[in-house]
């Protein structure tokens, strides 16, 4: 299995888990999405949510394990996007999606 990035109709980028045999150009839509999780809970505008969402995908930060050891990068991303969020808000959303609301 490998990861493939695609963009949906609304401009959100997603990381899908696809078979190694899937060729470039073939649609990954039938395969499970690895992330990122729904960021709407952060209360950002639609535009900021999309910028953050896509920024995370571009950095390869699409689920909780992918954030490990990358707090500095995450902080820099938030800064570059001009978003006044704590990295823990992001990590919390990612962990909630990955580990479940236990």
């Amino acid at each position, binding site marked *: 299995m490998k990861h493939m990035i695609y963009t949906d109709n609304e401009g959100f980028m997603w990381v899908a888990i696809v078979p190694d045999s899937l060729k470039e150009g073939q649609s990954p839509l039938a395969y499970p999405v690895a992330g990122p999780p729904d960021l709407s809970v952060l209360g950002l505008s639609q535009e900021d949510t999309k910028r953050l969402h896509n920024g995370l995908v571009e950095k390869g930060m699409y689920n909780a394990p992918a954030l*490990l050891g990358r*707090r500095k990068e995450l902080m820099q991303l938030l800064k570059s996007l001009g978003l006044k969020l704590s990295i823990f808000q992001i990590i*919390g959303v990612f962990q909630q999606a990955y580990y479940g*609301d236990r």
Partner: protein
Amino acid sequence: MADTIVKSGSSRIFTIQFRARHDHAPMFHGFAVAGSLDYGQGDVTSIEVPDPTRYNSWLTASEFQGAADRVTLPLTFRLTYDLSEVLKLAKLRCAFDVQIHLGACTDPRDFDLGYEKVQVFENALISSYGTTDIGAMSGDDQAGIDEEVEISARTMYEIIPMRYSEVAAGFVGQEIVAISNGDEAGCGDCADPSDGCSKIFALANAPGSSPGVLAEVIATNDGFSTVVESPINTLTLADNVSDGAVVSDSYVVISNETNSLHYATLDDILDGEIDPWTEVTAGFVIGGEPNAIVSVSPLDTWIVGDGGYVYFSASPADGVEVMDAGSATAEDLHDVDAYDTDNIVAVGDNNAVVYTIDGSTFSAVTGPAPGVNLTAVAMRGEKEWWVGTANGKVYVTTDRGEHWTEKGLKGSPASIQKIGWSNETVGFIAAATAAPAARLYRTINGGYSWTLDPRATVGILPAADRINDFTFCPNDPNKIYAGGLADDASDGIIIKGQ
């Protein structure tokens, strides 16, 4: 001073009769010099095998090294009209400690601050005593009379002023509640070669953010040059953790909130395995939620908790068994330390102190501060316990709590978080002022005197609200890792001292 060559005139001698201890004052010997020390490290013997390619020839297949010898050191004292202190030491035939303080621009009589380096000779005995010529037959023979002794010490090591710096700053976003050394010194026969101070595990609490975040272990394989994070996936988001310890090849986390322990192997944590954690609830009792853990061997771990509960674990994977269900004390216990598998002491709220001398039967003894919560305990010996309080006091007993002595600390700390002994001579205390601001104290004489570390001429302690825990390196009292709450009251901090 790092590259400054030490001259022989830059040394002065202190002795500590009956060895370093909180009530044994170091004695300065201004009219004394040390000779050349001899510290044999053990003969190296080759193991040979016949050379398969030549008759009457052998190859070295391996080698082994014998045990290190005792350290011997000649000391020379100018004889004075006072009673000889060194003759007294020789005739007492009791072990004592010798410290040679090396310095340049400070007052050598200042035991705590008058050195740039100290050579410590522990557990010394005088193997010979003599003098130079006591009489002079003629004026040409006139000379000062010297006492000459040779000491034989069990071990010798060096102490230098410590410097502290923050490490892993980009990774530590949550308060560090515990920090442990999971490394073993070795030459590479059984694992990677290591100085025994490279694999460090720091337990970071869940931040108070919304949505919640998992508490995690921040670990390193190389003294925090590189760092891995391991979220404790068996916790619920935002669950707080209480303490952690290395137990054999695992790191064990206890949580008062989950009333359980969580463990993962050190290798899995260091390898960045996803979700390596396992939760164990077996044996924990409601009302006895765990607060502190200490482990002295793979088979001997103690956990103390609310309601005076004491648990024992022979294997974290199998859970815990109740050793004391709050019968010695019903107070919440907050810290525990073990000297060996028989001698364990725990302290807690309302002056509670409980201990065992057989590893299983716990008894209460009256603590040093009636009505005050005790927050830290460290055992320097079977009978010598150091206790810190929630109101910033430190007490020591050398008779299992029958008598307590308060040890004063400069700067009037408002609380004590941790006391620990790197070896029999060097110890540390983590405290905080009312501000709050973290303070670290160090002793190099078994607790007789404590000074703020680092000394002002060397540097400053990275700013922090408090240091909750620290861990040492085997065979190196000049290295420490500490963790706590950064000075913004929210971030965590890991500090490396060396």
